[in-house]
């Protein structure tokens, strides 16, 4: 099973990101589960969402305390220690940031990849919502699902030009990161 925690601020589509990722996995025939950190969500407040993916049915319903991967939608959250808390040995961090991956990795003392997700989203969608770009990058990095699975999941939510723009964003974000660089982590987790 791989366990993922998504950190962001209310309004950045954290729960949507978790639901999209789990939907893509389920549609590809995997077992998956996604849920929010169950807060009274307010715009701008730090929030978290959780995703699990496995070959077997997922029984546990507790929060993800020891994630294999952490996805950070707002780089200002990196200052709060809770964001990378419990990250597993060899776990990886994907951050929406215009800084370089080396800079972020050094700052965190962890293996991280930075993606200017908000900037990519602004270019393609006209809105700086980082979630879709981060998910595309996550799939390209891990290889856990084909990037097209995300496009299919998006097609369940969007139509027409919005969908076309999202598709272009997914392709651009997926190309922007080293392909399958994190495959060993997902392989080790048996996903």
């Amino acid at each position, binding site marked *: 099973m791989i366990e993922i925690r998504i950190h962001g601020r209310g309004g950045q589509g954290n729960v949507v990101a978790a639901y999209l990722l789990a*939907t893509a996995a389920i*549609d590809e025939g995997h077992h998956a589960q996604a*849920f929010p950190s169950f807060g009274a969500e307010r715009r701008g407040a730090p929030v978290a969402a959780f995703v699990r993916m496995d070959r077997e049915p997922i*029984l546990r319903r*507790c*929060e993800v305390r020891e994630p294999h991967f952490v996805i950070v939608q707002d780089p200002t959250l990196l200052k709060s220690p809770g964001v990378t808390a419990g990250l597993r040995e060899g776990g990886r961090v994907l951050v929406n940031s215009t800084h370089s991956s080396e800079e972020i990795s050094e700052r965190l003392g962890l293996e991280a990849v930075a993606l200017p997700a908000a900037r990519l989203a602004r270019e393609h969608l006209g809105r700086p919502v980082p979630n879709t770009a981060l998910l595309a990058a996550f799939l390209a990095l891990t290889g856990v699902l084909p990037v097209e699975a995300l496009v299919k999941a998006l097609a369940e939510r969007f139509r027409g030009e919005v969908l076309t723009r999202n598709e272009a964003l997914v392709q651009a974000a997926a190309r922007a990161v080293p392909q399958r660089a994190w495959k060993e982590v997902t392989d080790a987790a048996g996903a």
Partner: protein
Amino acid sequence: MPQALEGSQAIARAVALCRPQVVAAYPITPQTHIVENISKLVADGKFHCELVSVESEFSAASVVLGAAAAGSRAYTASASQGILLMSEVLFNIAGLRVPLVLTCANRAVSAPLSIWNDHQDSMAVRDAGWIQLYCADNQEAVDTTIQAYRISERLELPVMVCVDGFTLTHTLEPIELPSQEQVDGFLPPYHFARALDPMRPLSMGELVTPAYFTEVRHMHHTALREALPEIAAADAEWAEVCGRHSGGLVQVVREGDSGIGILAIGSVVGTFADAADHLADLPAARLIRLRCFRPFPDAALREACRGLTDLVVVERALSPGAGGIIGTEVRAALRTMRDAPRVHNFAVGLGGRDVPLELYPRLIEAARAEEETGFAILDLEPEKLPEEGLSR
């Protein structure tokens, strides 16, 4: 082929498949998404019903009571303070023997104010005379909703389908939705023999003097006791349609030969099963799940507990000043067993406190303790308590 659905969305779709003619509900966290999804299905023309906007849960319950009494299949949903505001009507619905299905998106009760999950709300209306079924996952929430209409309409008893707020309602997971044909075949059109009809006038809710009150209450109690086999049968018969069981009355989720049993209710059972499967160096305990809480399935429970030396009852609510609610009832039910196990009773996960896998070994440990635990809150964090004046 399973679909990726949020629990609330799946429940709304299941409700629509049951074709209720009247839905009335007042939004409250964490039930809101159920009502929103039903509204959307109605607005999109995918579900045809009279959707009544009301100004409170008291009105929601009153509307569905009236609708069902007038011969319409009806549905409502609520949680927490909403269930409490409904409570007067809930007793009336049950006492009038009107068939209804209500989803309780289980949430703690204020004060202190909490929007998070425990079972205090449905436990507070334990004695309202409703059938109460607790779901372990969202697939069961779907299947149990469909079964609930069948049980309710056959027995003229209302059914509360209890679904953990957030933990289930806000979790997206793979769900198999049955076809409309499957549901239609299982659930014949609603016919209420005592329906209010101006052409055949009758009275409901009359004053009952001491001459008959006792007999009416006895009939209600008897009807609930006799519901036990019907609840088990509805699960078995739905399984014949769709191939899925939802746990009957009492479900043995994992077998174990250590003499230790763990009994739990609701979605935390999945976490315990996962812990039993994956944590190392644990004696194999029998994991028992109480699906049906009202009527109380005492005989099935005794059967499930046969051969145990210790049973740990885990619950998500508290009767302040007494302790556990389910634990007390389990103790009473097991008393007549020849070799009744010791019963250790714990509350966990109050007001949404996360129940991690690591809690499971502590339950096993409690079962092996020299002393029987009457009642304790297992995940209490004593360091957070004030040093003096603990009770104030």
